[in-house]
């Protein structure tokens, strides 16, 4: 023990940082901030450190070459001892990191911690969020499988829509004319050198400001932030009723960080690594690429926006979002911090959380995507075929053979791109069905050129049987009047 002390003194006599470190560690913080709500920032740093270490471990085997990357991932998964675990830790670490950074941001917003004098801390935090998402996206690219390949294609297609300089941006992003070796190399450089370097620098700056400006006090209704008096009031608070950060507050940070690390390890061990999916071979087109979890909501938004709004929303939306985040602390730098007096802020958090959850859930289900194999892989449920005439069954065959099932569900089987047709005969008359099939419209292709008159007749006759038992098909009242009572009886109730 004495030896350690002597060694410590020897080093400190030369380094001269012991006093500064002690002062920083023991600086007083407001008593209430020793709270489980104040642990997300430190946990994000700990997960970031885990990502650096696990990333270096993967780099020992991973080959950042378009021709070899996928194979090296397979080697990691199946041949290198516990290579799968290293990949799983890095993959799950990235999911947890994005989640914790988002939670941290929500907590800071909820507690009004971005207000004077911590505006710049928030601004740096916004950049840290963007970089964290950048790491998540570039990391997904390094998992160089089909999803990564076509995900890059989607990124290129979005970038190309920038007016005038779109196509050069695509070349710059891909490093050439197509997604290939140069593309992977530059995403590797971004993921391994550029973004981590920036992250380390910005995390350092962020922490420095947190230490210099002090941890945000627990918001109390009626405790108003005023630029003229805030700093004085904060120091009074910490000097009068503060506790040293180490050890009084830090133990909760340590405990939570350890819990998160344990959770990452458990997820990695239980669920294993992410992919890689199919090999990145562009000639294999039997693929339905999907982004990783934290980008699923974008996938949903892209599908649900009307086409005319897509390009503006894609190009302007992110810019507006980031600018709003950056402006926030300057627009509302004074005033109440307590969520009890900031109903709009609380509602905004709820709204964004519900929107994120809804879009993510929709994207996991992806009802806008046709089920590409429904026509061959999902037969029409028997209740729609029982007691049907030969012509009606012929129509059911047309329904399968012409891929109608890819977009239209019957008995909850099949695509959801178009409406389910279980009861279509109740809402559309025979003439309307014929018109819809032949001319299309309402986001359905026209089948006029690809159906013979006989096929159309059979198909529509089948469609007219799709209604609840005992219910008549829809009929055209005007035609009934013209044809007399007999017209109404021409389609008997079955």
């Amino acid at each position, binding site marked *: 023990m004495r030896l350690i002390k002597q060694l410590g003194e020897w080093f400190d006599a030369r380094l001269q940082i012991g006093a500064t470190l002690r002062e920083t560690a023991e600086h007083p913080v407001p008593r209430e901030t020793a709270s489980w709500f104040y642990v997300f920032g430190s946990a994000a740093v700990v997960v970031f450190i885990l990502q650096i270490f696990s990333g270096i471990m993967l780099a020992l085997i991973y080959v950042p070459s378009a021709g070899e990357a996928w194979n090296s991932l397979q080697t990691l998964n199946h041949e290198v001892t516990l290579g799968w675990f290293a990949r799983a830790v890095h993959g799950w670490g990235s999911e947890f990191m994005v989640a914790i950074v988002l939670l941290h941001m929500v907590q800071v917003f909820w507690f009004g911690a971005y207000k004077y004098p911590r505006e710049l801390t928030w601004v740096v935090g916004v950049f840290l969020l963007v970089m964290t998402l950048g790491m998540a996206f570039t990391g997904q690219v390094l998992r160089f499988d089909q999803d990564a390949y076509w995900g890059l*294609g989607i990124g*290129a297609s979005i970038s190309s829509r920038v007016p005038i300089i779109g196509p050069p941006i695509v070349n710059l992003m891909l490093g*050439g004319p197509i997604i290939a070796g140069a593309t992977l190399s530059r995403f590797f450089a971004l993921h391994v050198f550029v973004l981590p370097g920036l992250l380390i620098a910005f995390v350092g700056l962020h922490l420095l400001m947190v230490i210099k400006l002090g941890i945000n006090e627990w918001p109390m209704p009626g405790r108003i932030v005023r630029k003229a008096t805030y700093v004085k009031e904060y120091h009074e608070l910490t000097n009068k009723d503060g506790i040293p950060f180490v050890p009084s507050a830090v133990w909760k940070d340590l405990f939570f960080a350890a819990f998160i690390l344990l959770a990452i390890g458990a997820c990695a061990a239980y669920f294993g690594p992410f992919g890689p999916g199919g090999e990145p*071979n562009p000639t294999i*087109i039997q693929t339905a690429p999907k982004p990783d979890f934290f980008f699923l909501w974008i996938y949903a938004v892209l599908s649900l926006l009307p086409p005319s709004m897509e390009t503006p929303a894609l190009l302007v939306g992110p810019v507006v979002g980031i600018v709003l985040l950056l402006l926030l602390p300057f627009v509302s730098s004074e005033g109440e911090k307590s969520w009890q007096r900031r109903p709009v802020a609380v509602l905004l958090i709820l709204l964004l959380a519900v929107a994120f959850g809804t879009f993510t859930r929709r994207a996991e289900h992806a009802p806008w995507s046709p089920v590409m194999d429904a026509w061959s892989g999902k037969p029409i449920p028997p209740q729609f075929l029982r007691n049907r005439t030969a012509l009606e069954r012929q129509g059911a065959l047309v329904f399968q053979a012409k891929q109608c099932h890819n977009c239209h569900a019957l008995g909850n089987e099949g695509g959801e791109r178009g409406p389910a047709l279980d009861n279509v005969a109740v809402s559309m008359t025979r003439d309307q069905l014929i018109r819809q099939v032949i001319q299309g419209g309402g986001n359905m292709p026209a089948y006029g050129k690809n159906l013979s008159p006989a096929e159309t007749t059979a198909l529509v006759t089948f469609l007219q049987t799709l209604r609840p038992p005992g219910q008549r098909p829809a009929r055209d009242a005007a035609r009934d009047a013209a044809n007399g009572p007999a017209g109404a009886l021409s389609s008997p109730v079955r």
Partner: protein
Amino acid sequence: MKLGILFNGIVAAILAIPLVRYILSPVSHGRKGAYQSWFALGDLAQFPAGQTRLATYKNPYVNLWDGMTGDVACWVRHIEGANFQVFAVNCAHLGCPVRWFPQSGLFMCPCHGGVYYQDGSRASGPPERGLFEHHYKVENGKLWIKAGEMPTPGMVSGIPGGKPPCA
């Protein structure tokens, strides 16, 4: 002091110019049209008249370490005689690979549900235009196409140097 800063600034600019040109080389290279070239896609016999078939080719502009990413697919529609249409597989919405369904005569995209007719024109879904088309020619019993760059919706015609979609 001022002289020192000025000197550093000049040296930085001298170094920066070639390095920026290096960074921009994927763009400047494409400007010269170097990415696009004519090559034979295959014998005409591979593409029976009246059918649409998937064809693959090695991208003319490729590096040794590109591996299988240097292989590109396209859809060849042989209408009749010397009339063809060659479509890029990339959906005009966001670039996902479209699949051909001969029974219904439609191309469908698995990502966001874009659908195209057999002639490549837009049928339904989010795409704002038809499929991207490559230039083609028939020579010596082979089908030649001009390609080399992944088409994206931002290109004026979809294909660099290609014809506008309605021409």
